[in-house]
């Protein structure tokens, strides 16, 4: 019986370690001397619709997706980069076209896009973001809301020149 328990514990610990690695992967590049590119996350491109239009906001709003876009290596902020966002929200499913929108980074490499409140779907409240233009390598992210009730989520992109 103790054999069964230790196996179970090991599996939970492994699952926890994988989850922790996923989160720290977002932070780790900051600590590096030359800034490493953000890797694409597993499941990041699920329900992606290429070419989401640049919008003032997605739907009625109420939730803020914010973030920064920098260049790998020197960490210089990147202006005018298009970030595409989609999620399962109070107003629609990830696959619905009206759940998708895009915005551009400002002169400081920052972006802010208002969208409907993200709600838990497929087990966890999460958003999807994509950088998919020719200048840099494509990155798909699938960050989790730390708390399903959060009304904002900050996401950092570090892009590798293509």
């Amino acid at each position, binding site marked *: 019986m103790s054999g069964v328990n230790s196996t179970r514990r090991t599996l939970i610990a492994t699952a926890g370690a994988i989850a922790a690695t*996923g989160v720290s992967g977002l932070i780790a590049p900051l600590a590096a001397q030359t800034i490493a590119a953000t890797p694409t996350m597993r499941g990041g491109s*699920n329900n992606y619709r290429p070419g989401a239009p640049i919008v003032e906001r997605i739907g009625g709003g109420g939730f803020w997706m914010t973030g920064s876009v920098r260049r790998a290596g020197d960490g210089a902020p990147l202006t005018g980069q298009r970030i595409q966002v989609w999620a399962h929200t109070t107003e629609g499913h990830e696959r619905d076209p009206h759940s998708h929108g895009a915005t551009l980074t400002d002169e400081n490499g920052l972006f802010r896009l208002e969208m409907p409140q993200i709600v838990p779907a*497929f087990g966890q409240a999460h958003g999807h973001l994509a950088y998919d233009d020719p200048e840099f390598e494509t990155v798909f992210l*699938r960050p989790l809301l730390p708390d399903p009730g959060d009304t904002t989520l900050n996401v950092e992109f570090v892009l590798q020149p293509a």
Partner: protein
Amino acid sequence: MLGPVLAISASPLLAYRQPVYILASFAGGIAMALLVIQPLLPNNDMPGLTRRFGRMIHRGTGAVLVAMLAVHIGGLWITSPPDVVDALLLRSPTPFSIWGVLAMWGVIVTAALAAWRRKLKPKTWQRGHVGLAALIAVGTVFHVILIDGTMGNVGKAVLSGAVVLATGLAVWRVWRPRRA
């Protein structure tokens, strides 16, 4: 049986889901509720049932469980195909889906084994069947506990406790150490 259905019905998340996704949620909840009565049926643990009748219902419930699993996964597939494909190929970023897939294979192997049980020695059959039941219970409980789903934390804890107790009883009967 009614508990999980009521708990899911009360979920505010349903308002943001399509009918097919809601159907998949209910099928999952009903399947888990069946896991509570399923181990009690063949062992004379249900009041008012003879062992023979209990086993008959046990077989029927098993078939319903397979059907609920199919509706659960089919409904999720229609809702978001890439997420289900990731889960089935074990490349999903979400640990709970691995537990769910484990339980799914447990149910599939159990159904296959049940179809061929006459070719197995009774003891092999019994140990395999109950071992698989334990796998299904463990996989389902972790799957459910790790999810922010429609059942709510209290509902999940109560149902998980009931599944563990009912399955644990059946496992103890078959696998307990016996004097030679």
